[in-house]
């Protein structure tokens, strides 16, 4: 049976139009993965020397363990954003003579083979080797090594449990924030010293290998809990017959002032408000808006002026990047209809453009309180907002004409929680890093005013040439019309 599943997975992956059309992105992902492997290898081999040098009078093994809690916590956070439970189209399998439990075991087993579970090995194994070479008993280090690997798997399954809960909430980040915040808070306020608890437990396992049964038991519990969640979901009525929601209609007549694009704006607003996926994206706005609070309260960052541009672009352009990169895939479900209707492509795109511009303005206004941390920050954010409106909005619309991946708004495949992964974030990088780089460079060479002026000039240039740029972008969309229709009518 597993052989059949593997065969199906293989075909699904390599026969999807997505794979065939975005080889460059896949190469980028592989390079990124290799980069992390090298980093972890370096950490694994170098950690012992670093610890010995920094804290010569302490046992490096104990010191390393005392930091494990933060690593595990960081690992959990990373996974939540980047790792999704493997998707498998189960519907066709349900009526076949396959045990439901086999399907679930396969999906869970497959998740254990994720890159995130292998990555720690590149650090843990070299570190263990170095410790043994340094004179630690292999009989103490090996159980420790296995214990860490088991904990990594525990985190793997814990993450899916959190995601299962977050899938049911509109505020999809709440469960993660609760779990991670509780763990961190317990430690930080000394309610329960998680840091030393995790560290001492790991040391205890290395002293007495029998204790390894405890994480093993935990792993089994987490696995079984996942198994239970998924098995309950594995009925057609939970994925097919979603509960019928009562319509919440809002008065959108104010969009009429936008003239001929009003129908599209109303459609876009309904799109955002009535679909789970877009709704949770909107909730993300608050995270984006508050992003600056991670940096600005610390005096260290307040002197790094190039960070202002980055945070400015990020926090004012958060919606733009998240919404914009899936244009026109948001409409992929009914793209054929739009294309056979009496519409002007330019109007369709302009509606999206105005929506993005409005989001930038609103986010900038909401971010004005950042002036508390210095007027320079506000000015930099203003420049970043102009840059977003003039440059990034057009770039992302242009990028949309290469979009070939359908988004399924209606149906949620039984195992598909959020439908996005690492790729989504990679696309955003150049949009944020380029202005940051330019800003930082000019700021360093000339000065703050010049750097601000540069971003504003670039933004204004984009706004001045808006009509020209839009007709160019519209032409790109028209050119790839048939390809888009074809890709959007495929399921993967």
């Amino acid at each position, binding site marked *: 049976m597993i052989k059949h599943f593997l065969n199906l997975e293989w075909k699904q992956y390599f026969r999807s139009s997505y794979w065939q059309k975005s080889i460059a992105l896949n190469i980028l992902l592989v390079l990124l993965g290799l980069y992390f492997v090298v980093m972890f290898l370096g950490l694994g081999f170098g950690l012992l020397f670093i610890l010995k040098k920094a804290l010569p009078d302490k046992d490096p093994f104990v010191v390393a363990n005392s930091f494990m809690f933060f690593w595990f916590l960081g690992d959990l956070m990373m996974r939540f954003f980047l790792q999704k439970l493997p998707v498998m189209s189960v519907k066709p399998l349900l009526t076949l003579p396959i045990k439901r439990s086999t399907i679930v075991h396969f999906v869970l087993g497959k998740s254990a083979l994720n890159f995130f579970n292998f990555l720690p090995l590149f650090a843990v194994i070299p570190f263990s080797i170095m410790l043994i070479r340094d004179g630690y008993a292999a009989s103490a280090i090996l159980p420790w090594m296995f214990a860490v690997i088991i904990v990594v798997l525990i985190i793997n399954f814990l993450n899916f449990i959190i995601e299962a809960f977050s899938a049911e909430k509109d505020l999809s980040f709440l469960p993660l924030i609760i779990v991670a915040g509780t763990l961190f808070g317990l430690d930080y306020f000394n309610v329960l010293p998680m840091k030393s608890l995790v560290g001492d437990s790991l040391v205890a396992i290395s002293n007495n290998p029998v204790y390894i049964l405890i994480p093993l038991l935990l792993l089994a519990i987490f696995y079984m809990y996942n198994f239970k969640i998924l098995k309950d979901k594995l009925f057609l009525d939970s994925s097919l017959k*979603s509960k*019928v*929601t*009562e*319509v919440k*209609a809002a008065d959108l007549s104010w969009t009429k002032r936008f003239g001929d694009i*009003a*129908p599209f704006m*109303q*459609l876009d607003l*309904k*799109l955002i408000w*009535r*679909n789970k996926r877009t709704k949770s994206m909107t909730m993300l706005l608050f995270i984006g808006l508050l992003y600056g609070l991670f940096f600005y309260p610390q005096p260290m960052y307040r002197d790094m002026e190039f960070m202002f541009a980055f945070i400015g672009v990020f926090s004012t352009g958060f919606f733009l990047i998240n919404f914009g990169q899936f244009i026109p895939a948001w409409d992929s*479900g*009914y*793209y*054929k*209809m739009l*294309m*056979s*209707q*009496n*519409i002007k492509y330019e109007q369709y795109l302009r509606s999206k453009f105005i929506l993005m511009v409005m989001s930038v303005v609103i986010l900038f206004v909401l971010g004005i309180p950042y002036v508390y941390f210095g007027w320079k920050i506000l000015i930099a954010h203003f420049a970043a907002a102009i840059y977003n409106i003039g440059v990034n909005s057009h770039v992302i619309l242009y990028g949309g004409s290469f979009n070939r991946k359908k988004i399924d*708004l*209606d149906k949620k495949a039984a195992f598909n929680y959020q439908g996005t992964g690492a790729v989504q974030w990679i696309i955003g990088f150049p949009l944020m890093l380029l202005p940051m780089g330019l800003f930082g460079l000019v700021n360093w060479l000339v000065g703050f005013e010049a750097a601000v002026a540069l971003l504003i000039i670039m933004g204004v240039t984009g706004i001045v040439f808006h009509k020209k740029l839009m007709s160019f972008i519209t032409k790109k969309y028209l050119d790839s019309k*048939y390809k888009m*229709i*074809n890709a959007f*009518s495929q399921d993967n």
Partner: protein
Amino acid sequence: MIYTKDLSKTYNGTTVLNIEELSIPKGQSFGLVGNNGAGKTTYFSLLLDLIKPSTGRITNNDVAVDASEDWKPFTSAFIDESFLIGYLTPEEYFYFIGDLRGQNKADVDALTSKFEDFFNGEIIGKKKYLRDLSKGNQKKAGIVAALIGNPEVIILDEPFANLDPTTQIRLKQILKDLAEKQGVTVMVSSHDLMHVTDVCERIVVLEKGNIVKDLETNPTTLKELEAHFASNLETSEEE
């Protein structure tokens, strides 16, 4: 009204549609029948410029559909559920289509009120999203949406499938009226030979992408069609 010349569509060396010449006059109710893979949906997709023809072209009211978009204002279609916007209610969907076709809310309401018995009270005012409707009700909404804005050409792919018998009969009456009284060119495809012969003045049979029969409907047409498809059965059994 619709003139097709030397049209062909080839995927990776396989020709799925090949029509030398086909002319459909204004106001004709035109039926397309054929087994699966005969090219019916391909032809409709070409007509709506959703796929690119390999050779030849279709002109709709003297507008070449793959070169200009001027055919869109007077042409409407319902091909499958992907023509619906799942997160809208049927009313909102009608208004949206109406907006695109230059009809205000009152125009749309006036039109949809004529279809009250067709909807059978299951579409309007139910406060349900289209994605939550049954397949049959989705189809009803899609078909009526295709009638908004007084189109001169209406294209419906398999309109009778998924509908209950009462609605099928009502739909036949609607389609007949459109062609006879309002001079609309109605194009339908179907697997149900009886419905097609009831509705259409002219029936074209497609087989593996080629036109094999072109019939004016008369009382013997149904027999002829049944004989044609039954003979396919025999020849394939002999092979």
